[in-house]
């Protein structure tokens, strides 16, 4: 007979199935509101500057990296006793070896600071989506307000639970008639100079206080711009005027048409770098977050577990790829293309 029918595996399988069935029947969770831009937290703003939940996550990731790094180097010892210093030295050694293989000892020494800063920051920012409570604790507001501001058209009923309010899994969908009514009411409130607030909310949506920082395109594009511009600065510093040759080859060599074409391609590829760096990171982490939402929505226990493992891996991989590409761009910028370089 098959192995599944022996007592232990059988009990295990039945247990898993029971948990899945129980969670399907009794523990249904609402699907969180999925919005592409970072969501402004209601009631939290400095003047006109609305604080978004991804901004809060960025600050938290910064603090985590800074505090860990300071703790690691606070009392440096030749033979480290603190575990944190040990871990940091281990990480440093691994990646120093890797960068030395790619760019040589001198360049690895020069840029490993940038590399590790980006790696650690992105690790903290990416893995934040895995922490329970990050996307589920926040401000509950009426779906009407969310519709008027962000176009959200699905809300949930709420229930009181001890001191808190929670969303239930009972969905409320706004009909086209509701939408028209909301728009009319909002216009009336605005013409009267008031902030729009519905008297009898149909449903509620939740805006989390914290949402993983890299699920906001602003952060990834900002980081990609910084990296690419920085690579040009490094190129000019190390090669001087020679660096400009790669974009304007015909000035140096005789082959005009081909070289103009090469120069244009080099120029376009700089923009392609920005787009590919930022969209790869953003797309992976945002898609991972949506995946976790949907899996928890389908079956709230056990099923999301393997996907957490997957996201753990993907989060590390994306942080590593971003950092290693940064190093490769820096390294490429210091190669002179004209062929008269001397190493």
């Amino acid at each position, binding site marked *: 007979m098959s192995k599944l029918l022996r007592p232990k595996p059988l009990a295990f399988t039945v247990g898993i199935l029971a948990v899945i069935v129980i969670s399907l029947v009794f523990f249904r969770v609402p699907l969180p509101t999925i919005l*592409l831009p970072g969501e402004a937290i209601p009631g939290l703003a400095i003047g006109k500057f609305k604080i978004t939940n991804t901004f809060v996550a960025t600050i938290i990731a910064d603090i985590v990296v800074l505090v860990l790094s300071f703790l690691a180097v606070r009392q440096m010892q030749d033979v480290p006793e603190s575990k944190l210093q040990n871990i940091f030295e281990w990480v440093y050694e691994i990646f120093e070896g890797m960068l030395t293989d790619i760019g040589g000892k001198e360049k690895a020494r020069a840029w490993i600071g940038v590399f590790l800063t980006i790696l650690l920051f992105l690790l903290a920012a990416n893995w934040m989506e895995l922490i329970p409570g990050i996307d589920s604790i926040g401000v509950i507001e009426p779906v009407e307000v969310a519709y008027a501001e962000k176009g959200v058209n699905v809300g949930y009923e709420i229930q009181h639970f001890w001191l808190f309010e929670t969303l239930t899994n009972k969905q409320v969908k706004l009909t086209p008639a509701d939408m028209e009514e909301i728009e009319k009411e909002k216009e009336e409130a605005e013409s009267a100079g008031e902030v729009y607030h519905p008297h009898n909310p149909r449903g509620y949506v939740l805006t989390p206080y914290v949402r993983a920082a890299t699920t906001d395109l602003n952060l990834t594009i900002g980081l990609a711009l910084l990296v690419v511009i920085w690579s040009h600065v490094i190129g000019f510093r190390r090669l001087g005027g020679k660096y400009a040759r790669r974009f304007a080859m015909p000035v140096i060599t005789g082959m005009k048409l081909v070289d103009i074409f090469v120069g244009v391609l080099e120029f376009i590829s700089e923009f392609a770098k920005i787009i590919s760096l930022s969209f790869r990171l953003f*797309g992976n982490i*945002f898609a991972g977050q949506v995946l976790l939402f949907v899996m928890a929505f389908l079956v709230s226990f056990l099923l999301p577990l393997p996907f957490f493992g997957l996201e753990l891996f993907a989060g590390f991989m994306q942080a590593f*790829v971003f950092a290693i590409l940064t190093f490769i761009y820096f390294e490429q910028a210091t190669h002179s293309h004209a062929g008269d370089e001397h190493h």
Partner: protein
Amino acid sequence: MVEILSPGLAIGLGAIGPGIGIGLLVMGALQAMGRNPEVAGEIRTNMILGIVFAESIAIYALVVALLLLFVGAPGLK
């Protein structure tokens, strides 16, 4: 109709190429590992890096699909 179909087509068509690419990539890596098991670790690292780069093409399609789904294209609604 179009607003439902377009994100589906964007990710569906966009995933074909990377799917084939990742398949070829892993095939090559596994063959190399089979022929030369001593450097399996190194090949595996590079294989995973390659997979991530091939996968990122599908991620671009996914981003376009998500944009269409949650933001919408001008003139589509």
